[in-house]
């Protein structure tokens, strides 16, 4: 067994494999499948201040090599998350390394969720700021596609918590490296990428959009080449540790992200195909390292060779 521990600045993990937010619920749903402590970290579904219905249905549509989703903000809200049986109390007992993904519809909401979680941070290893949500105060522009807003939201959250901060970048931009720089300047400790790519699908028989919300986020192996490129671009632009994701189905895919510059990875859509996918990714990374004669997974981070 190779040494799989990784070092993401303030966050040290037993292995580089996390679950991607929104694809693993709150961990509770998979408790009968395996011990959550096997994972580098469990990243929970996005938490906002208030409980919310989320979007209308249908919320998902399958595409070639991927899927569109527009689940929306459905979730219990931060209070229930902190105290409801199936949420934080369960996670604390499970012993899992927990990263809480947060979102809001205004800068203040982001700050408030972060502050609230900070106040009861026992068992929380880090916060991940999802900046792909629309800012309702600024007419619906996503925080993650506007450099100034992205900086502001991260800076505000930074003031509200001492927890390690991950900022999750949107791929729906011309130059993702600029966003990595902006959020690094604003004080994020890590960046994670990519979130889903905005897409659309139409049922040609009914002529209606397949997603009630009209557009949805594309995830799955279809987007992997785009994600790898973006991880590489960000790794050349900032020193901030990177959590790479987008279409990881097996250990080989995870290795590809690490060679491109990611220090850790997250498995998302693959979990829907196989709940054990994150564990298989861990095993697959280890198998690769042994095949290549590497003692530690750290040896492959950013290890792509350019001739």
């Amino acid at each position, binding site marked *: 067994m190779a040494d799989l521990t990784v070092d993401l600045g303030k966050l040290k993990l037993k292995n580089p494999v996390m679950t991607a937010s*929104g*694809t*693993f*619920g709150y961990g509770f*749903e*998979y408790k009968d*499948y395996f011990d959550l402590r096997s994972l580098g970290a469990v990243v929970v*579904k996005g938490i906002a201040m208030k409980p919310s*219905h*989320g979007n*209308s*249905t*249908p*919320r*998902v*549509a*399958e595409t*070639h*090599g*991927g*899927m569109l*989703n527009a*689940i929306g903000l*459905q979730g219990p809200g931060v209070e229930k998350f902190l105290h409801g049986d199936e949420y934080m109390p369960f996670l604390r007992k499970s012993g899992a390394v927990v990263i809480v993904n947060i979102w809001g519809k205004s800068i203040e909401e982001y700050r408030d969720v972060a502050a609230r979680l900070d106040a009861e941070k026992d068992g929380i290893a880090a916060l991940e700021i999802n900046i792909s949500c629309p800012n309702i105060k600024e007419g619906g522009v996503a925080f993650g596609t506007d450099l100034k807003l992205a900086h502001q939201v991260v800076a505000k959250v930074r003031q509200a918590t001492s927890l390690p901060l991950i900022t999750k970048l949107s791929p729906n931009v011309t130059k993702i490296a600029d966003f990595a720089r902006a959020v690094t300047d604003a004080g994020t400790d890590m960046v994670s990428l990519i979130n889903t790519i905005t897409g659309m699908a139409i049922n040609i028989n009914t002529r209606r959009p397949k997603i009630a919300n009209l557009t949805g986020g594309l995830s*799955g*192996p279809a987007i992997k080449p785009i994600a790898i490129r973006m991880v590489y671009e960000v790794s050349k632009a900032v020193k901030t540790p990177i959590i790479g994701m987008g279409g990881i189905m097996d250990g080989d895919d995870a290795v590809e992200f690490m060679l491109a510059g990611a220090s850790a990875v997250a498995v998302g*859509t*693959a*979990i*829907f*195909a*196989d*709940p*054990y996918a994150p564990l298989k990714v861990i095993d697959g990374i280890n198998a690769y390292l042994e095949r290549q004669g590497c003692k530690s997974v750290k040896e492959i981070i950013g290890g792509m060779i350019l001739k």
Partner: protein
Amino acid sequence: MTTGEIVSNTILHDGYYKVEFFAPGICAKTQPGQFVHVKIANLRDRILRRPFSISDVNENGILTVIYKVVGEGTEVLAGLPAGTVCDLMGPLGKPFSLPGENELPVIVAGGYGSAATYLLAKRSPVKGVLLLGARSEADLILTDKFTAAGFDVRLATQDGSQGHKGLVTELIPPLLQEKSGHKIRFYGCGPMPMLIALSKMLQQGGFGGGEVSLDHLMCCGVGACFACVVKIKADNEDGWRYARTCKEGPVFTADDVYTDGE
């Protein structure tokens, strides 16, 4: 999660197929109304599993699914020969509760609803009635199995090709008259509009304890992704909340079904 080797996979008629998996672990745990989440072998360009109601299980570990070819996944499934191994998650979801000894079960089904309720009929301590509706004769499946299970089968088709011409729910009022002496327990499974109509009837008629199986496009199948939600009555401003059909359902009490909207 288990592997399930296909034991047989044959056409019933007109686009309806029956596949049998060898999956003793799942069979042993299955209760009526639960489903199995299938990773269809060879469906390489699609990532997601496909959910199917467990129509029957037996003591030899054979799990039966009845399915209709409607898209790429079911088309590929229909082409899988015996011997192919698929990855199965299950049994998943909340089951129907069996009727009591003093209750007459009336199953109202449409589409593959008869497949999804067959195990309920088989395990029911009291043999009751199946009201089965479909667009046309060709879509009426498993009627002989229900008859063999001791159920009284009554049919409705929209085109009148067999049984009552019209909606299956139209068979309910005459049945109520006929069975006025009985304590009826309703079960519903089929297309959403039918289930909404049925739930409304049961709510208005005061038939407590009725159960309906609501399902929706699924992803994870275990309650993690919130893809599969339907509106269920709730004590909040809106009067409803989105409940996950894969975990909180697919079976809900008819009383809880939110009948005013989607």
